[in-house]
C-alpha cells in the first residue's frame, strides 16, 4: 500500500482488478475503501464525502454490512446520492471476508454500478465495522482509508495493526470530543507518525461544518493521480 501511494497505481496482480480499463475501453472509476472499527464514523465519512464531492464527481457507494443493507439504507435515507448509486453487498456476517479474502461479490457490485449508472469517477467501498486488522484487498480497491476515533481511546494508533499502519490515509475522527474523553491529540499524531512513517493522517470532526474537508482533499488528490496515470 505504501507503494500504491508513491507510484500511483501499480499493475494489479489479481485477475479481479484487471487493470484500469473497462471492457468498452473507458477508464474505470477509482475505488477507495473505507474500513475501521464500529462507530468511528465510516458511514458518516462516506455521507460527508458524497455531499462534498457529488456536484463535481460522479460517485457511487458499495456498503458491506454485518447485518444486511443497514448502512446502505442509512445513506439512502440521508439522500447523499440517488438511490441507484448505493448498493449493499451481503457479507454473511463477515465484512472482512467480503473486502479481503473473497472479494467477488464486491467486484460484481462495483462493475454493476458502472454498467447501470454510467461512467463513474469514484466508487467508495465501505466495510462494515469490524476490527483493527480488517484491510481491503488490492484486488478490490486502489487505496484505502482507515477510520478511527478519539472516543476509542488515544492508544489505538500506538497499538497499530494493519489498518492503522498500512492504510493510505488514517482518519482520526471526533476530534471535537477529545477534551471530553481525555484524549491527547498530539500524542495520537506522534504515535500515528511512528507507526505510519510518511503515510498521511487526517484529523476530522465530522459533526462540524466542513469537517470532512481534509479527507475530501486527499480523495481529490488520489483521483488526480489516477486520472493522470490513466490518461
Amino acid at each position, binding site marked *: 500500500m505504501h507503494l500504491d501511494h508513491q507510484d500511483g497505481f501499480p499493475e494489479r496482480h*489479481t*485477475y*479481479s482488478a484487471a487493470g484500469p480499463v473497462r471492457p468498452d475501453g473507458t477508464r474505470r472509476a477509482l475505488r477507495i475503501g473505507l474500513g475501521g472499527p464500529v462507530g468511528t464514523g465510516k458511514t458518516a465519512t462516506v455521507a460527508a464525502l458524497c455531499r462534498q464531492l457529488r456536484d463535481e464527481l460522479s460517485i457511487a457507494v458499495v456498503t458491506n454490512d*454485518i*447485518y*444486511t*443493507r*443497514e448502512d446502505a439504507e442509512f445513506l439512502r435515507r440521508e439522500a447523499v446520492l440517488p438511490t441507484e448509486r448505493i448498493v449493499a*453487498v*451481503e*457479507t*454473511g*456476517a*463477515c465484512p472482512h*471476508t*467480503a473486502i479481503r*479474502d*473473497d*472479494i*467477488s*461479490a464486491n*467486484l*460484481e457490485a462495483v462493475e454493476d454500478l458502472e454498467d447501470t449508472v454510467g461512467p463513474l469517477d469514484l466508487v467508495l467501498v465501505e466495510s462494515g465495522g469490524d476490527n483493527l486488522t480488517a484491510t481491503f484487498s488490492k484486488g478490490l480497491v486502489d487505496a484505502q482509508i482507515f477510520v478511527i476515533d478519539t472516543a476509542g481511546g488515544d492508544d489505538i494508533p500506538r497499538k497499530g495493526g494493519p489498518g492503522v499502519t498500512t492504510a493510505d490515509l488514517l482518519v482520526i475522527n471526533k476530534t471535537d470530543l477529545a477534551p471530553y474523553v481525555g484524549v491527547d491529540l498530539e500524542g495520537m499524531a506522534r504515535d500515528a507518525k511512528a507507526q505510519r512513517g510518511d503515510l498521511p493522517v487526517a484529523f476530522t470532526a465530522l459533526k462540524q461544518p466542513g469537517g470532512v474537508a481534509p479527507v475530501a482533499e486527499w480523495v481529490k488528490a488520489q483521483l488526480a493521480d489516477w486520472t493522470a496515470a490513466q490518461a
Partner: protein
Amino acid sequence: MSRAALLVLADGRFPAGGHAHSGGAEPAVTAGHIKDAATLETFCRGRLHTAGLVAAGLAAAAAAGLDPLLLDDAADARTPVPALRQVARRLGRQMMRAARATWPGPELDALAAARPRGAHQPVVLGLAARSAGLTPLDAAYAVAYENISGPATAVVRLLSLDPFDATAVLARLTGDLEQVAAQGAEAADRAATEGLDALPAASAPLLDIAAEAHAAWPVRLFAS
C-alpha cells in the same frame, strides 16, 4: 491434469462468494428447525439429496462437456422460485470470475460472454472443473460438498455451534455425499445420450418456500 485441483476447487476459501450464503440454514435456524448438530445433520441430508443432487448432476454434465447453455436452461427449470434462480446466477457469476482467474479457458470465456449476468453456479463450477482437467465425478463431489459445507459453516456463525461438532456433521454425511456425487455423475453420463431430462430434478419444497420468505426479510445475516 491433476486430481489435486479438486482440493483447490472444493476449498471453502475458494473466492467465489459462498461465504455470504447459508443455503437456507438461516431461515431454518430462525424457525427453530436447526438448533444443534443433530438437526443440522438432518437438514443437510435433506438438502444434499435434493438441491445437492440436482447441482451434482448439472456440474457433472458441464464437466463432461455438455452444452452449458442448455444446462443453464435445465437449471432454471429445476429452480421454481426466482430468489434461488437469482442467487444461483449471482454465485455463478462470482464462480466464473474466480474460475477464469484460476483455470482460464475458452469454454469459460464463451459461457461468460453468453451469460454476462451469470449462469447457474453448478454449471459454471462444472465447467471450471473441466477447465482444470477434473472429471465429471470430481465436479459432482465439489458441488455436493459445497452444498452442505455452506450451511454447516453458516450455522457455526448463526448458532455459535461448536465448530468441531459442525465438522463432525460433515464427516458423518460423507457416505451420503459419495452416493449423491455418484448419482449425479451417472445421470450426467446418461444425459449425454438420452438428453437433459436424464438429469436429477429433485425438489425440496421447504427450501423453495423459505428462500422466498428469507429474501423478503429486512434484516438478515446471509444473502440466502
